[in-house]
């Protein structure tokens, strides 16, 4: 176990390594069918193609399973833990509950991949006290980069493949996950525009985003979502002592990106991933932003927090 301290032990969080679609079905179908036969709640969050493969093979039994397209809810990985929280809260009193979640797939942007890998680690913290919850995370060894596959050992105590179960030699302990220091955010990919948020309201943010040179890629509804997310973050996270919150915006390859710096620090590594949403505090601001944006990146130090919001056209 890497990192001293508590071991992930409350719930079973396991990587399931498979090689292509046929192997995926071969490995997962018996587990799902067994759980259905035992009357256990099952939620499968994988892509739509795999959902259809499994549904066809399960036949009538598929009606006893919950299905969610992970490419939707998991586009922003911070939305996945609330989904599992809801599932465990509503069905965890029935003994074992079983989930399949595939948050990492080929083609994810570097930023989304980093957040998805962080999500995998945070699952161990989020469900530390959910001993009846078994979560299997499929990883396609045929299409994923070897470095991505290596990372599964940091976040999963156990790895499964065709040869059976193997204990991870390098899974992070819970204290190490909680104390994690994220890699710094990269430099903006395009020309930036700035707005000092001290004294500037949502109207000023809205005017800035309405400038075609700033966020012209976004239609009105998505600009409004972005404005709402910014207002939620500034309103609920507050400002860091002595800081002047600053907004920077630029257009990335596939999204408009807004970065807000100078926000109050966030100490809870699971902030923004609660379900139901908390009534106040930085956690509520982050939760709202997570629902509105395609990707949210949080970096917090002792002094201040920086948040990046990605919104795609």
């Amino acid at each position, binding site marked *: 176990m890497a990192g001293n301290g508590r071991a992930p032990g409350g719930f079973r969080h396991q990587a399931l390594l498979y090689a292509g679609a046929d192997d995926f079905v071969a490995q997962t179908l018996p587990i799902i069918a067994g759980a259905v036969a035992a009357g256990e*709640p*099952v*939620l499968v969050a994988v892509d739509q193609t795999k959902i259809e493969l499994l549904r066809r093979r399960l036949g009538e039994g598929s*009606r*006893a*399973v*919950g*299905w*969610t*397209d992970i490419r*939707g*809810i*998991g*586009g*922003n990985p911070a*939305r996945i833990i*609330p*989904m599992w929280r*809801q*599932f465990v809260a*509503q*069905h965890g009193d029935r003994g074992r509950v079983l989930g399949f979640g595939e948050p990492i797939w080929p083609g994810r942007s570097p930023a989304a991949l980093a957040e998805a890998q962080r999500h995998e680690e945070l699952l161990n913290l989020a469900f530390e006290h959910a001993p009846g919850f078994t979560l299997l995370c499929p990883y396609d060894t045929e299409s994923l980069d070897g470095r991505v596959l290596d990372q599964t050992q940091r976040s999963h105590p156990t790895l499964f493949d065709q040869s059976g179960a193997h204990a991870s030699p390098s899974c992070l302990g819970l204290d190490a996950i909680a104390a994690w220091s994220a890699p710094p955010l990269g430099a903006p990919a395009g020309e930036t525009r700035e707005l000092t948020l001290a004294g500037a*309201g*949502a*109207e000023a943010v*809205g005017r800035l985003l309405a400038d075609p040179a700033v966020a012209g890629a976004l*239609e*009105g*509804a*998505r600009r*409004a*979502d972005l*404005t*709402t997310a910014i*207002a*939620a973050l500034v*309103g609920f996270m507050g400002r860091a002592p002595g800081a002047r919150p600053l907004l920077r915006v630029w257009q990335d390859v596939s999204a408009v990106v807004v970065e807000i710096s100078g926000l109050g620090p966030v100490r809870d590594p699971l902030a923004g991933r609660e*379900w*139901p*949403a908390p009534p106040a505090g930085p956690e509520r601001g982050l*939760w*709202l932003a997570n*629902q*509105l*944006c*395609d990707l949210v990146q949080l970096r917090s130090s002792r002094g201040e927090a920086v948040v990046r919001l990605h919104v*795609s056209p």
Partner: protein
Amino acid sequence: MTVADRLLPGEPFDSDFLDDVEHWLSVYEELTNFVREAELDLVRWVQRYEQRLVHWQRRHDELAGAGMGCVAFR
């Protein structure tokens, strides 16, 4: 789909999975409450959130009340 109908990321408009429906119901309750409380100048878009809230309330009533749709976990 009109601009007013623009979905949020990952929003499964036609979902028949009750957990999904309850999730999105709570999302739009939170959004409408926040925008109203914060008195943001986003009246046009509040209506969009409110319309979507009504959609998910209706969907919830269909699935939970009439026993329609996905039978998962029942």
